[in-house]
């Protein structure tokens, strides 16, 4: 073997070894997009219990300021009475005061409608603490002190669990059941939060770039969905799901499902592919819908199935005009 060849072999093997080493470290430590990013997830996750089955996040500020929102607002003008009333009562302007919201569903055993657990809402922004507390007191709420944090405990009505509120940090309000808010206060001083749940954090780390995202256990979605037996049996074994969307002048998003095994993922891909093919056949005569379907991309690796979509501004314009047209044709009949 010549020296030149020996250098080539060593260089090539070194490249492979370094790549495998970095990948292995990333895999075992759980780095996200690269080996040099932070751990991931919004800071409010530290107040969410480790057993939360569903977590959703929305960057309210960015969504409200997006071109898309302005477009929808001008296309379908809505009454803002409710928003003004909410602002008068709480001092919170949804458009400007809330930066982002994190909602988690935690299986506590308390029944909350058709939800698979109790929700806890963590909103970060600028809040008038005194005004909010006064408003809740007007509606019969009591204020109590729990581990140095003021808890505003609402009155229980119609057998439903009472709604509580607490300011966990300056600019961070938590709203939820009494049990969950006390739990959040407990987690403030440490404890096992969702950040210690590797399975969920693995999903959340990959969603950070989205303006809005949700991740959770799939059974949490289907358990209260009252799906017909035939349908629920046909859904291949999905264990976890995640969805994220980026909103500016258009919407780009991805839905990702983690299945029990690779066979389930393959059959799920086949099902989705079948639906896409069927939808493409149905919309072949309607270019505005056909181009939307073209933007759907099926992907995924191993046990993951991913479906991404992209609605550019032009496509949204077409959908908005389609909506207007429908409104126009329906109006005389009403």
């Amino acid at each position, binding site marked *: *073997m*010549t020296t*030149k*060849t020996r250098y*080539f*072999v060593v260089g*090539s*093997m070194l*490249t*492979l070894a370094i*790549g*495998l080493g*970095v*990948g*292995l470290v*990333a*895999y075992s*430590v*759980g*780095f*996200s*997009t*690269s*080996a040099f990013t932070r751990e991931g997830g919004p800071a409010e996750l530290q107040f969410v219990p480790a057993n939360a089955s569903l977590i959703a996040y929305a960057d309210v500020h960015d969504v409200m300021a997006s071109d898309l929102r302005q477009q929808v607002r001008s296309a379908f003008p809505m009454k803002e009475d409710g928003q003004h009333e909410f602002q008068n009562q709480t001092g919170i302007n949804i458009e400007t005061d809330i930066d982002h919201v994190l909602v988690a569903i935690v299986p506590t055993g308390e029944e909350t409608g058709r939800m698979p657990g109790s929700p806890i809402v963590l909103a970060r922004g600028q809040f008038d603490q005194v005004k909010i507390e006064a408003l809740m007191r007007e509606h019969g709420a009591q204020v109590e002190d729990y581990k140095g944090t003021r808890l505003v405990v609402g009155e229980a009505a119609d057998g439903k669990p009472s709604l509580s509120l607490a300011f966990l940090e300056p600019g961070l309000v938590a709203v939820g059941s009494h049990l969950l808010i006390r739990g959040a206060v407990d987690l403030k001083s440490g404890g096992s939060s969702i950040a210690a749940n590797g399975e969920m954090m*693995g999903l959340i*780390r*990959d*969603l*950070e*770039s*989205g303006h809005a995202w949700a991740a959770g256990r799939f059974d949490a979605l289907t358990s209260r969905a009252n799906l017909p037996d035939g349908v629920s049996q046909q859904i291949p074994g999905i264990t976890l799901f995640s969805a994220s969307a*980026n909103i*500016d002048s258009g919407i*780009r998003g*991805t839905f990702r499902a983690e299945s029990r095994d*690779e066979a389930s993922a*393959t059959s799920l*891909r*086949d099902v989705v*592919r079948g639906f896409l*093919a069927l939808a493409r056949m149905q919309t072949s005569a309607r270019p505005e819908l056909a*181009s939307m379907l*073209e*933007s*759907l*991309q*099926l*992907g*995924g*690796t*191993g046990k*993951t*199935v*991913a479906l*991404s*979509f*992209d609605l*550019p501004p032009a496509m949204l314009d077409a959908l908005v005009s389609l909506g207007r047209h429908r409104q126009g044709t329906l109006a005389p009949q009403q």
Partner: protein
Amino acid sequence: MMAASPANRRPSFVSSVLRIFDLSLSEMLWSRRSVFLALLVGGPVLLAVVSRVVWMFVPNESLRINGGAVSGASIFGLMIWLLYVRFIVPILGVFYGTSLIADEVEDRTITYLFTRPIQRGAVLVGKYLAYLACTVLLILPSVMVVFFLMVPVGGGSIAQMFPSLLADLGMLAAGLAAYGAVFAWVGARVKRPLVAGLVFVLGWEPAVLLFPGYLNRATVAYYLQGLVPHAMPQDSTMSLLLQTFADMPGILPSLVALVVLTAGALWFAARTVESREYVLEQ
């Protein structure tokens, strides 16, 4: 009884293979064909570098295919399918596999190898191993570089995709081994092996894979596709037909089939070289 002198002792099969491997690896790496190999391997890397640079300057604009936004991880999967599995691996198998013996015949240098006190089969196996080392050491680092450049684009996770990278590397090595062995046999047996190889790779395999039935089992691609961990791309009508009609074998049957195919083709190739009389054209 007199022991055979070291000069007259015939080397074992393994040491003959290693000697030929050592000799052929440098020849193979620094030949004219390497320019072609470098272009093939450099193409995906260049594409990944360009995509990464574009993404660095416009991070909010996601990469698009047919107007649809796709993540870097999806593009990596797409590149594995379209560039490596469907093109680079079979083409390299054809060009290098068929030339293992054919080049020596064409250059009339096979006599020098066959007059050495080594088994003829060892010549083929040694050259085959040199081909495998040469291609594996070029393609796998190229895939590695493409992986690290593409997957983080659009928020992809290296950690999450790492197991599939390992599967990709294994799959590509298995593909190179299988295609190389099959075309080594073709090269040892057929007079114009390159034409036959190109017809097989660019004609027979894509055509047969489209039809339902058992014909697709007479291809290497059928078993190789069973090992690809990424979803098959929806790039064309052909892919749609492939997804609709072709059944994908499982990982274990695919692996077993590729191992049997590689070992069988290599054995037949060695047997052919052992028994065939090569007539050198003057």
